[in-house]
């Protein structure tokens, strides 16, 4: 069984994002870049399925600029067998990403595609669902547990009402939630080993993907600041204040 993992590079979640003063974007020069946390979880899940003997081949794929190679080496060091780098200088929107991943699916014929439920830069939460639709296959989004039973997967999903369990026939797209697993740390020997693992480079133009970048971002702004509050010294003062505000 082959698993394809979407592995996006994003601004590290610890970075305090600053909007540029002229509103043309956010400051990304010199900030730390890391794998999208949800994609690390996706890769970890794929590796665990391989370790359980369910899968044999784990392929990580990213769509990004030339310097994403180091990022993919990271995925290989974590344990992926191979990597695919779709090279583009432009950030792609989810529909384009989904159409691009569909091309990789046609080429790789995976049984499972695992993606993060959202990327923590654009927070769109779309690509997995779009990919499943274009592929005409099931989607199991927001997964917190995945069991493979032959030709189907039983997936527990974190939904607003609680935990929903569904069965999906394979092949299928699964998107990860935070509690699916805790990704492993990469050890030094793995970094060495990753250097010799296959990394295929494909220019985005060569895939003849119809662009789905239909949205135009016309302005960036810092979020409205909440006005500075007050510190109270004790419970009596707190409750009195809440009563004046009519909140209790």
């Amino acid at each position, binding site marked *: 069984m082959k698993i394809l993992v979407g592995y996006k590079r994003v601004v590290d979640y610890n970075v305090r994002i600053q909007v540029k003063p002229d509103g043309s974007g956010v400051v990304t020069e010199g900030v730390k870049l890391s794998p999208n946390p949800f994609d690390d979880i996706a890769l970890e899940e794929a590796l665990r399925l391989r370790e359980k003997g369910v899968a044999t081949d784990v392929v990580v794929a990213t769509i990004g600029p030339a310097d994403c190679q180091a990022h993919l080496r990271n995925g290989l060091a974590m344990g992926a067998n191979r990597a695919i780098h779709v090279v583009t200088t432009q950030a792609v929107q989810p529909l384009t990403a989904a159409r691009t991943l569909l091309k990789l699916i046609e080429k790789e014929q995976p049984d499972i595609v695992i993606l993060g439920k959202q990327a923590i830069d654009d927070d*769109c939460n779309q690509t997995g*669902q779009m990919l499943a*639709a274009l592929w005409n296959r*099931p*989607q199991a989004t927001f997964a917190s547990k995945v069991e493979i039973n032959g030709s189907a997967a039983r997936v527990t999903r974190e939904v607003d009402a609680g935990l929903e369990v569904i069965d999906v026939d394979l092949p299928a797209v699964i998107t990860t939630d935070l509690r699916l697993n805790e990704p492993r740390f990469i050890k030094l020997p793995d970094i060495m080993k990753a250097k010799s693992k296959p990394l295929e480079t494909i220019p985005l133009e060569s895939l003849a993907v119809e662009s789905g970048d239909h949205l135009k971002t016309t302005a960036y702004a810092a979020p409205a600041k909440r*006005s500075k*509050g007050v510190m109270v010294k*004790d419970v009596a003062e707190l409750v009195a204040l809440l009563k004046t505000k009519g909140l*209790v």
Partner: protein
Amino acid sequence: MSKVLIVAEHLNGKLNSSTARCVTCAKAFNAESVAVLVLADAPDAVAAEAAAIAGVDKVLTVANPANTHAIAAVYAPQVVAAAQGYSHVLAPSTTFGKDLAPRIAALLGVAQVSDIADVLGAYTFKRPIYAGNAIVTVEAPADATLVATVRTASFAAAAAGGSATVEALNLTMELPTHTRFVELQQGKSDRPDLQSASRVVSGGRGVGSAENFAVIYKLADKLGAAVGASRAAVDAGYVPSDLQVGQTGKIIAPELYMAIGISGAIQHLTGIKDAGTIVAINKDGEAPIFEIADIGLVGDLFTLVPEIEAALG
């Protein structure tokens, strides 16, 4: 002129208030007409609720046993069929809408606007990115169907008082059977629903254990509040995952939010930035939560929270 189709969210025969919030969003860009689409096994009760929302002109129903559970792969082609002639398809930015809307957008071959937080025009919206650290203005093409999810915390629910007509749609299409509902594990709770409650009491890692969470529940019950939690509290197993508030949990806007033993990580704050009054209780006076709290109190939660409960009489 925009004609809006809203996909109704419902569970156990009850309409979710997220649907009425989508109506408010549609009204914000002066939609010419608003229709609500109810996909269900037996849609009548939900359709009647939707028809009573002020501002809804028409309710469309599709009765089909295949629609008993909200399976995105089953719903999406039906929404696409029903959406013919509409300029906008809206769904709430809840797990229901987040799961479904991109599937609709992809079938239509259009981009999706996620998490509309503010309306500037029928095709121009503001939405948060980077866990709410930046707000972008996005413009979608006016010559394609606009598919979007609506950040429910940003729009009040449209009031009752409508009397829309209800029309049954007869969609004959083959629906996939590759995705099957098994069960929904739902914590039973008599407490108000976290997403729509006007008061929320949340606990974090500082609460320390599932047993200790009783402190939070007791205060919540005294206030008639819903209970929420930080990711750390959920990950540690103190409370179920559906109580998580934040970037990857629920985005809420109660009138009163009490953050207890929560440090105030950006991913948590993005879930509460539209709350009316934020109260923070933390033993660390330097905790970032105090930077955004309207009222802060430094001290041990195990002393303070029972005191608050007592003071409320």
